[in-house]
């Protein structure tokens, strides 16, 4: 019986292949949205993740960077420097704003860098300078490619004109790119004097960052201090939260679509086997054997579909990297596991259909000519 189950599954290879492919595409829907979303949220935390100081110091009540505003008086930098265990403090200005390049607009982190800063600027450069001077900007290489601007061209940030002096790598995302300008320029844009946005603190060797953060909070008034790990965690949570509903809906839509497609394909697949089932019944095979056979077939199709989906997913990942670098996908083992689990559930759920179908088949069908 097992032999027949498998042989009849692949006896029409094209049919089997097409069924698995469609099931695979359906399951792909579930993985795809997740992967794009995870890739995107990974990009949103690119700045804190790559800059990675030991401790972030910010205005009290602020916990992260994305969609946040923070001001701290610049004299507090000196207070922080005095705290025991602090090796170095780098102040930055930071603004959520729009970069206008070509004729398009990009929502961006704009970071204002002090001259001669050691750690707050772009971490990987494609070309040009990594230290913006007055009236100069460093933008993501990909943004430059899409907007078709070169070194020396001008762009606008918060309605001020800047000349591009450098292209950075790893700083583009569809939802949130990162642009670097000089501290002085950003201070003018924000009409500030005497305050910074964040302080990036490096600890002395051997000093525990969480203890240091604690000490800074105790010794400097009205600031919040977080280890880099906590800060990134908060940012990631916020980024995920913002997309969670959308992605939740997409996943539900994708899953429903997948379930209906899988059910439909299994239904079509089993419809073709009605006569075979009638023969099995007439020959004297019982419910158990026939149902198990239907379940095994449904399971095989869904699992082949899952493998197809994973292959398609990696192909899509590769292709978008090559042709649409602005889309960043991240395929995490967890999301693969989750899709595996979802497809298992789909397989179980969808095999109810062939079970009902096989139960309904009248063995007298075998008497038809």
């Amino acid at each position: 019986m097992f032999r027949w189950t498998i042989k009849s599954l692949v006896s029409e290879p094209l049919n089997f292949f097409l069924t698995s492919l469609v099931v695979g595409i359906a399951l792909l829907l579930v993985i795809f949205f997740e992967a794009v979303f995870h890739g995107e949220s990974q990009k949103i935390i690119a700045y804190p993740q790559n800059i990675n100081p030991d401790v972030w110091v910010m205005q009290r009540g602020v916990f992260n960077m994305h969609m946040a505003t923070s001001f701290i008086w610049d004299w507090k930098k000196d207070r922080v420097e005095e705290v025991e265990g602090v090796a170095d403090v780098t102040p930055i200005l930071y603004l959520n704003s729009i970069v206008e390049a070509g004729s398009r607009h990009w929502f961006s982190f704009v970071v204002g860098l002090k001259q001669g800063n050691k750690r707050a600027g772009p971490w990987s450069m494609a070309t040009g300078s990594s230290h913006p001077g007055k009236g100069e900007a460093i933008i993501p290489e990909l943004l430059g490619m899409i907007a078709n601007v070169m070194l020396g061209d001008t762009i606008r940030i918060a309605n001020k004109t800047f000349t591009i002096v450098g292209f950075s790598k790893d700083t583009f995302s569809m939802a949130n790119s990162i642009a670097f300008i000089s501290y002085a320029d950003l201070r003018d844009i924000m009409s500030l004097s005497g305050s910074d946005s964040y302080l990036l603190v490096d600890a002395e060797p051997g000093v525990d960052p969480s203890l240091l953060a604690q000490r800074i909070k105790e010794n400097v008034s009205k600031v919040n201090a977080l280890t880099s790990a906590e800060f990134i965690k908060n940012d990631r949570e916020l980024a995920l939260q913002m997309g969670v509903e959308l992605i939740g809906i997409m996943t539900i839509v994708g899953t429903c679509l997948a379930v209906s497609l899988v059910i439909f394909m299994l239904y079509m697949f089993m419809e073709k086997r009605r006569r075979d089932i009638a023969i099995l019944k007439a020959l004297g095979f019982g419910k158990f054997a026939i149902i198990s056979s239907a379940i095994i077939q449904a399971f095989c199709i869904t699992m082949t579909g899952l493998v197809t989906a994973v292959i398609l997913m990696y192909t899509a990942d590769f292709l978008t990297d090559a042709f649409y670098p602005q889309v960043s996908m991240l395929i995490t083992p967890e999301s693969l596991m989750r899709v595996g689990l979802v497809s298992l559930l789909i397989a179980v759920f969808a095999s109810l259909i062939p079970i009902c179908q096989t139960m309904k088949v009248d063995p007298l069908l075998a008497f038809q000519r």
Partner: protein
Amino acid sequence: MVNKILIAENLTREYGSGRALVRAVDNVSMTVLRGQLVLIMGPSGSGKTTLLSMLGGLLRPTEGKIMISDTEITKLDESVLPSIRARKVGFIFQGFNLLDALTVEENILFPTQLVAGGINAKRARANELIERLDLSSRRKSLPRTLSGGEKQRVAIARALINSPPLILADEPTGNLDSHNGQEVMMILQNIVNDEECTVIMVTHDPRVEDISDRILWLEDGALRNRKTELHSWVKDPVCGMRVDEWTAEVFMEYRGKRYVFCSYRCQEKFKIGPTKYITS
């Protein structure tokens, strides 16, 4: 050993209800002995297939009881009927009904999974049947590469593999040309003789009448005494062949007169230009 292989008492099967009620089989009783070749004949729609499927435990009668070698199958639960079928009944269908994904040998051995010993216990028997039904060269072939006659021989081997006491065949030659049909009939007759099993066969083929032990004539679901004259021979107006008006499958009315044909092909020809064939 039981000599009465099959006893049916007052079998009735109805389809539908109310005004749409059809009594496909109407109060049929019969007893069939071991080693008999019994024919069920009758016009189209007279309930032959319905009767046969009840005898094989595939369809429950509305009323009446059936005993197959001392087991009253009409009393049995739905869940045990399949195993009765597997051990006691072999089916041969007009449409062959082989499993397309399996080879000839696998098809023949397929029902052995349902009985004690399984495939290995029946290999010798399968080989013997393959030899006997002249299928040795097609052992590893898939059904779609076989001729109609070969397919039906595979189906016969499959029906025999578990040595059931009762073989039920519904127009086993219906899809075969006359040569292959004849051959299948010969095989079935030999089986009855050699294997001491019982064959109940629905057929329209008048040539089998001579080799059969009994003929049951079914009309409107009930067993009738057949008309005293066994046949009413008429001529197919197209090819001129002799056709039995009582059992003919293919017929039509034309200008108030009934015409009987040997095959659908002749009927089609007739439909295109009836006047060509009518010599009034």
